[in-house]
C-alpha cells in the first residue's frame, strides 16, 4: 500500500462575500479527484464545489463569479489546469467604493 503525500493533490479554496456566506467557510482544503487520469481544469472545480456543499446556494454564487489562482485573476478557466498546491479563490462580483 503506497502512501501519497496529501499536499500534492490538495488545493486551498478561498471563499469571499456571498461564497463565504453560502458555505459558512472562509477557506477549505479540497482534494482533487484521484487518480488524475486527465488534467483537472479549473472549469471543473465548480461542479466539485457544488457537490461538496449540497443544499447551499453556492452554485448560484459561482454562476456570476470569477476565479483567481495564486492571487492572479483568471481569464479562461478552461485554460488553467490545477495540479495541487494552488490557492484558488472564488471572486464574486465586487462592490468596493
Amino acid at each position, binding site marked *: 500500500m503506497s502512501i501519497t503525500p496529501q499536499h500534492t493533490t490538495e488545493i486551498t479554496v478561498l*471563499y469571499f462575500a456571498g461564497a463565504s*456566506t453560502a458555505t459558512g467557510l472562509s477557506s477549505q482544503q479540497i482534494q482533487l479527484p484521484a487518480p488524475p487520469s486527465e488534467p483537472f481544469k479549473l472549469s471543473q472545480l465548480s461542479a466539485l464545489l457544488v457537490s461538496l456543499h449540497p443544499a447551499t446556494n453556492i452554485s448560484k454564487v459561482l454562476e456570476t463569479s470569477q476565479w483567481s489562482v495564486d492571487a492572479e485573476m483568471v481569464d479562461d478557466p478552461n485554460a488553467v489546469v490545477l495540479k495541487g498546491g494552488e490557492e484558488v479563490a472564488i471572486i464574486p462580483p465586487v462592490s468596493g467604493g
Partner: protein
Amino acid sequence: MSGPSPYSVDARSETDWGICVLTHTPLDVPQIIQSVGDPAAGATAVFIGTTRNSFKGRTVTRLDYQAFSKLAINTMSHILVDAVHQISRSDHHTSDNPVPSLIRCALHHRLGTVPVGEPSIVIAVSSPHRKEAFVACESILEQVKRKAQIWKREFYEGDREEDAEWKANE
C-alpha cells in the same frame, strides 16, 4: 457561520505613482490629503465615499467591507499606474514638457465594519493643474468599483444579521 475572513487584512503598497492602503482603522482624511501635498502641485482633487443611511427606502444600520487583500492591493496599485499613464498620454502632456501631469495619488479603502456616515474610501490626487487631478481621481474611483476585490455587505434595520445582503457594483 464564518467569522471575519483571515484573508481580509490590512495591506499597503507604495510605488512611484502613489500609495494604496487597505485598513480596518478609520480613514484620516486630512492626513491622506496631506500625503499627496507637493510644492509643484497647483491642484488636489479628493473623493470621499461615505456609507449612506438608506437603500431603496430601507434604513441601513451598518456596512461591512471584506477584501481579498493580497489580490486587491495589487489591483489597486495597477489602477494608480493606469491612471497616471492615461493622464500622461493626454493632450496636456507633451514630450517637451518635463513637468509630470500627476504628482501623487493616494487610494485608501477601509475594511471591516464602517458605521453610517464614515468614509469607506478616500482618493486624493495632486497635479500641477486641476483638470488632470479631477480626471485621475474619478478614473481611479470607477476602476476600484469595477475591479478591486473588495465586497460590501449592507445590514438593514429590522433584518436578521444572516439575511444581510452582499452588494454588487453595476
